[in-house]
């Protein structure tokens, strides 16, 4: 903040931005630093100059303002209290149950050799899958978006489709190919194959919206193409990579189904094992505490990364389609590599589904429940995504529009809980709901609440990315025209958030369709989803009976994947 006054005096921008950008680039690239900085500043200033002028002339007006220090209205605080309270429930539950174990037992449990083994596995898996996904995802994005790759349209689709295959389906397929695909190495391979699209998509979007003038400028200053790539392009997609990487990492921390099929033990599988082995949740709570601690860096890393994200934004008027890099002799290896990737990520799991269907004798056994399971899946995932997004809204508005002191911390809370297994959240809700609101117990409403607790960060990240682009002044204009605060919000801000909502909700729907444990424990008796049926039939060894459910799960997941892909890439194209 110290150098902000001088900068603000002649720079028509919100106070933090030049500082963040300058610090980042100054640290990273001493030589080239100024170039992207100046270009980006110029571009952004042209796009949004009203903001800062207002920020400067109305310093203490107490109105809602981007980056301002205004006081939040009561309705917003009340609305934000709801998700904070819900997310606090599992944390309190874990603390209370962990406390029951006593200090001595806690230390004995946490300091035994197996904890080190679990920690090593958990970290190795999280870091390796994230790293590999970044490499593969970025390579795909670069090949498809920036190179003269034959069949770009087809590859774009094929590279996104693995998102539709739940990790537990692909893991079973791979595990049954033999023991060499099991264990930590196999898990890293298989989970990378199912998670790299989460990197590919933001990377591709960033490449699309990138200001190519920076690259041109670098080339005109005598940089070779590869050097310009490394020094100009990579820094610009880095925020997108980091955001995607953190998403992958939090998935790895919470992954259970795939890992147990692949015989890898992490903190999450150990928590499940505790609940399988004994009828005292104290130890499971202690392990959950460790897991939440592991989520802390992810939670705050996301916030840290997002600070840099402004770098990637460019003025849309100045953009043009980048020239495609000719591939030449690399064309064939690139095609082969992508084909191999698609075969591994899609061919193996889908082939195995077909194999079960034709070979298994239980084929058709559960056909009667198919429609019910589809209805259950759709109802739970759509309703859950709606509630999750609704609950995320006040949190995001509070954090982006008002500078209250506690907002940043409270806003991070859901990210810590995001890494908890659904089982722990479900048991916390069982304990809480049956005592506090018995009428809600075993209703779909409670399932929605559990989903919201588990997946709030996905909605927060998506909303936040858009909310930061909506100037608060639009809303203020509506208010000067006579609308109340809520009406102005509904008429102006909410519709402007829609693109972010679309991509965010699609991703949440996708995640919810494969959620298993919270659904099993909380759904009304008799309600089934495609995921619970796959679990149920494979548990009984009836793979052929499970196959149609798994295939439908992949098929139905295709829709949110389509929406998510389209919206994410479109945001890239529009530069918004």
């Amino acid at each position, binding site marked *: 903040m110290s150098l902000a006054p001088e900068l603000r005096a002649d720079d028509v921008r919100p106070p933090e931005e030049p500082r963040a950008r300058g610090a980042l680039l100054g640290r990273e690239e001493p030589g080239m630093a100024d170039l992207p900085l100046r270009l980006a500043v110029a571009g952004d200033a042209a796009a949004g100059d009203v903001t800062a002028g207002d920020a400067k002339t109305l310093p203490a007006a107490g109105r809602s303002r981007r980056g301002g220090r205004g006081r939040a209205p009561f309705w917003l605080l009340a609305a934000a209290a709801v998700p904070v309270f819900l997310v606090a429930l599992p944390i309190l539950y874990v603390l209370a149950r962990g406390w029951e174990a006593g200090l001595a037992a806690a230390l004995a449990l946490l300091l*035994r*050799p*197996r904890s080190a083994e679990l920690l090593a596995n958990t970290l190795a898996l999280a870091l390796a899958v994230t790293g590999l996904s970044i490499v593969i995802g970025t390579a795909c994005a670069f090949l498809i978006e920036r190179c003269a790759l034959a069949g770009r349209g087809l590859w774009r689709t094929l590279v996104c489709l693995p998102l539709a295959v739940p990790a537990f389906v692909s893991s079973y397929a791979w595990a049954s190919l*033999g*023991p060499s695909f099991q264990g930590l190495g196999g898990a890293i391979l298989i989970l990378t194959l199912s998670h790299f699209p989460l990197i590919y998509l933001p990377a591709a979007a960033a490449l699309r919206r990138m200001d190519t003038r920076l690259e041109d400028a670098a080339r005109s200053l005598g940089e070779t193409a590869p050097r310009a790539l490394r020094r100009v392009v990579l820094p610009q997609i880095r925020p997108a990579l980091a955001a995607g990487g953190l998403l992958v990492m939090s998935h790895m921390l919470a992954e259970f189904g795939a890992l*147990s*099929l692949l*015989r890898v*033990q992490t903190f999450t599988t150990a928590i499940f*094992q*505790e*609940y*399988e*082995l*004994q*009828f005292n949740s104290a130890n499971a709570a202690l392990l959950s505490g460790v897991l939440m601690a592991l989520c802390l860096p992810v939670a705050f890393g996301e916030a840290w990364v997002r600070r840099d994200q402004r770098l990637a934004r460019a003025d849309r008027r100045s953009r043009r389609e980048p020239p495609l890099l000719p591939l030449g002799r690399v064309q064939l290896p690139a095609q082969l590599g992508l084909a191999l990737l698609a075969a591994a990520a899609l061919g193996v799991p889908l082939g195995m589904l077909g194999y079960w269907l034709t*070979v*298994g*004798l*239980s084929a058709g056994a559960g056909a009667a429940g198919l429609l019910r399971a589809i209805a259950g899946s*759709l*109802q*739970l995932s*759509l*309703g859950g995504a*709606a*509630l999750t*997004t*609704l609950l995320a809204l006040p949190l995001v508005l509070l954090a982006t529009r008002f500078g209250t002191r506690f907002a940043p911390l409270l806003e991070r809370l859901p990210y810590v809980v995001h890494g908890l297994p659904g*089982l722990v959240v479900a*048991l916390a809700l*069982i*304990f809480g709901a*049956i005592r506090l609101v018995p009428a809600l*117990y*075993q*209703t*779909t*409403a409670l399932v*929605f609440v559990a989903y919201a607790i588990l997946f709030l960060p996905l909605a927060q990240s998506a909303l936040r990315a858009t909310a930061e682009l909506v100037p608060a002044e639009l809303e203020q204009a509506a208010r000067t025209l006579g609308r109340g605060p809520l009406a102005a919000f509904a008429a102006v801000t*909410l*519709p*402007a958030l*829609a693109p972010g*909502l*679309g991509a965010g909700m699609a991703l949440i729907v996708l995640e919810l369709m494969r959620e298993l*444990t919270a659904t*099993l*424990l909380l759904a*009304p*008796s*008799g*309600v089934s989803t495609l995921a*619970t049926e796959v679990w149920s039939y494979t*548990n*009984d*060894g*009836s*793979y*052929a009976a499970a196959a149609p459910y798994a295939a439908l799960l992949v098929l139905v997941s295709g829709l949110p994947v389509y929406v998510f892909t389209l919206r994410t890439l479109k945001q890239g194209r529009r530069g918004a």
Partner: protein
Amino acid sequence: MYRIDRRSLLRTGLALGAGAALAGGSVRAGRAASADELTLYNGQHRQVTDAVVAAFSKATGIEVLVRNGSSPQIANQLIEEGDLSPADVFYSEGSPPVAALAKRGMLAKLPAETLAQIPATYVATSGEWTGITARARVVAFNRDLVKEEELPASLLGFADARWADKVGYAPASDAFQEQIVALLQMKGRDATLGWLRGMKKVGRVYNNNIGAMQAVERGEIPCALINNYYWFTVAQEVGAAKMRSALHYIRHQDPGALITVSAAAILKSGRNPEAAQRFLAFLVSAEGQKIIADAMAEYPLRPGIASPYALEPFDLLDPPPVTPADLGDAAEAIPLAREAGLA
């Protein structure tokens, strides 16, 4: 390429969400408690429960609302629910989860005539739960990879360097906890801990019994310690004639020949004790036991009921003298498994 207006997208999204939420509420509305309704928390394999529930509803007119899950998770759920649980009956894949609830005083005593249908060996001494079916711990082996004669004569023989990476087991399974407790009661703490440490060193851990059994059948590992019915489950899926694996019975009252049971109990807090008692009576009746025996390759516990599966005759199993009631909630297994680095 069509374009969606933001407002209409938002409106559609909110409408869909609200619709889903409303539909959710209606599910609850259709779930009013009545005397003709029973809530069953089911951890037993579903094909068994589905078959027996259908027959019970047909015979009595009582509707059964079934909630499926893994038995220990259901027990944990019941413990969190406490007195407010909507459950009337718990049908568990193994006996330790019901024994855990009995220990916490959550189960009602079963009527004497229900308990009398099943041999006393397989019933809780306190009368709070009853075994429904039995199964044997066995060794599944792949005939292409190992000869039956080469298999150790005792369970203890598997934790040996000669079997390094050749034997699969599922330390997180219910049945394995029971196995540990049986060993503990028969051979003492040191022998048990030594065996567990050996298994940790030489054995290959599988997530569950079915996973270990499939690995044997695929030829991924020569043998695995499982329950007998998993072989039949896989045989049902691939066809018995094509099976490359077979079962080895250890017998000789070895801990590895342990008999374990599936079990059922009535929750004290249940709202419909009468219907719950009728359901339990049906599970142990000749009709109920026949349906259960047909649905899965477990031994029906009621005397005189034959299984259609080619099971090893129950009389030839020669199990150790440890009963399900002796195993209790198998809590003693955990400190040992933990000390051996298995949990």
